[in-house]
């Protein structure tokens, strides 16, 4: 069967393994694309393009990696400037690979306390996002704002906050995304949050309640797919499963069960496709 949505996996979760190993695996399990790790300075564009061509994959999106030095709302202006520069580099990287979306977390990941009054931080977020939004518009790349759960950020945890931020930024190329793992902790109703995002939803990260492959926890994916169909979502569903650890950026450096690689990658897409076909 054919799907109006496409499927990819985010590269960074596989840690240090070679791009070819990852790409080969995604191709083997019938993914349409890969979400590249947002490290514009490290990526070898020519080689990556060759590999993608060889295995018949496209780049769905770029996953920005928001370390403390890439904090769009930091009280230190230098750090904000650095974060803006970084997102622009990711936008250029996306354009280079014909990817439509760059993921933006409007604070550093695992930063759980504010450094300034919230309205000040909100204004910095607007300023930073306007600037990268304008740059995205120039290169036809959309920025997808992502909310993280309370343990990974204090700033924006829920879809309603994301939508408010998006409205305040008021830039055509700044939109929102969903991540089912974070939503399971923060949203009162996951499907309704997706419906409220409606046409502004430009990207989706999928993993189950325990951040394992779709189907391995207790999230009701039927209701999620139902909501996605209701809003006629026709973009990427990107798998982002991770080991159970507090800091995801550290988690990927540690030991993982061997099933993390092939089994999770295969079951994620099989289970999601099955549900997508079941929901009318």
């Amino acid at each position: 069967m054919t799907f109006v949505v496409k499927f990819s996996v985010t590269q960074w979760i596989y840690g240090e393994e070679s791009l070819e190993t990852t790409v080969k695996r995604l191709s083997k399990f019938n993914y349409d694309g890969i979400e590249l790790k947002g490290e514009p300075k490290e990526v070898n564009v020519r080689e990556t393009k060759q590999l993608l061509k060889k295995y018949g994959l496209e780049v769905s999106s770029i996953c920005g990696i928001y370390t403390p030095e890439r904090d769009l709302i930091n009280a230190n202006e230098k750090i904000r400037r650095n974060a803006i520069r970084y997102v622009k580099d990711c936008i250029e990287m996306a354009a280079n690979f014909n990817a439509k979306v760059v993921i933006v977390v409007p604070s550093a990941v695992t930063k759980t306390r504010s450094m300034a009054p919230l309205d000040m931080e909100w204004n910095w977020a607007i300023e930073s996002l306007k600037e990268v939004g304008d740059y995205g518009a120039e290169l036809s790349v959309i920025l997808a704002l992502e909310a993280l759960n309370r343990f990974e950020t204090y700033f924006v945890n829920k879809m309603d906050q994301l939508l408010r931020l998006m409205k305040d930024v008021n830039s055509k190329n700044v939109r929102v995304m969903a991540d089912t793992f974070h939503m399971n902790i923060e949203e009162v109703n996951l499907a309704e949050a997706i419906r409220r995002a409606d046409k502004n939803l430009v990207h989706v990260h999928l993993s189950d309640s325990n951040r394992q492959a779709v189907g391995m926890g207790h999230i009701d994916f039927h209701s999620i797919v139902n909501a996605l169909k209701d809003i006629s979502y026709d973009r990427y569903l990107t798998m982002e499963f991770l080991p159970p650890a507090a800091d995801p950026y550290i988690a990927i450096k540690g030991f993982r069960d061997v099933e993390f690689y092939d089994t999770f990658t295969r079951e994620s897409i099989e289970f999601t496709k099955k549900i997508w076909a079941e929901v009318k």
Partner: protein
Amino acid sequence: MVKYAYNILVNVGIDYAEEPLEKSVARLSKFGYDGVEFVGEPEKVDTKEIRRLLNKYNTEASSLCPIYTSDRDFISSNEKIRKNAIQYTKDVAKMASEIGAQVMTVGPASACMKTRPEASHEKERRWAIEGLTEAGEYAADLGVKLAIEPWNRYETHFINRIEQALELMKDVNLKNVGVMGDLFHMNIEETSPADAILMAGDKLIHLHVADSNRAAPGRGHLNFEPIIQALKKISYKHYLSMELLPAAADPFFAMRVKKCDEFFDQYTKESIEYLKKLWSG
């Protein structure tokens, strides 16, 4: 009969300095709770005063919730800190016996928010077993039970799921050491919260209740029906203790920044109403 309690941690704060203790106890009595879960800080509170309040409001102490700060860590690589955790647990057990609480929670045997190990897993396990055994034997003499509590991955690296808590409990192997669940953590870590309760069976001696977002039950998306069915199936007769906290990595910092009025009258009232209705339904 299952009983209802509310952890007044969110009302009195970690240092009993937020609202006067009497106000918290009076509130729970008013809204029909059977017991009060107190914060386990023996040095910050007078057990005679607690007994007076319990008597005055015709209620009981359901349990004690100790606060395992970084200097109270059963699995620290620093022996002094491990000993301090054991001594602290004994002090809380003594406090429990003085106010008539039968259960004290001991967390996952690690300090709150400690998410990186300081030693090999084998060593950490050995320290946890040693510490819980010594504290457990002391508590047994006082008639107090210890409940090992798994926390989600962002609050501990050590014990995240009921299955792991049961393994640790078996290794400690004391009659008065059991396990407990917390629905907020279970929503993140368990494949199925209801199945985890069934797996614990009669070893489950306490339950912290909250919805998926740590607000009052009914305010998130947790499916409570299978959870209550599971509790009935294991003939659960202990406390359902609401542990509700603001949506932040550090809830107490968050409370200082923003007033969280809903955790007082509003959530206290609606939590018990919601659960009683489900339980009888």
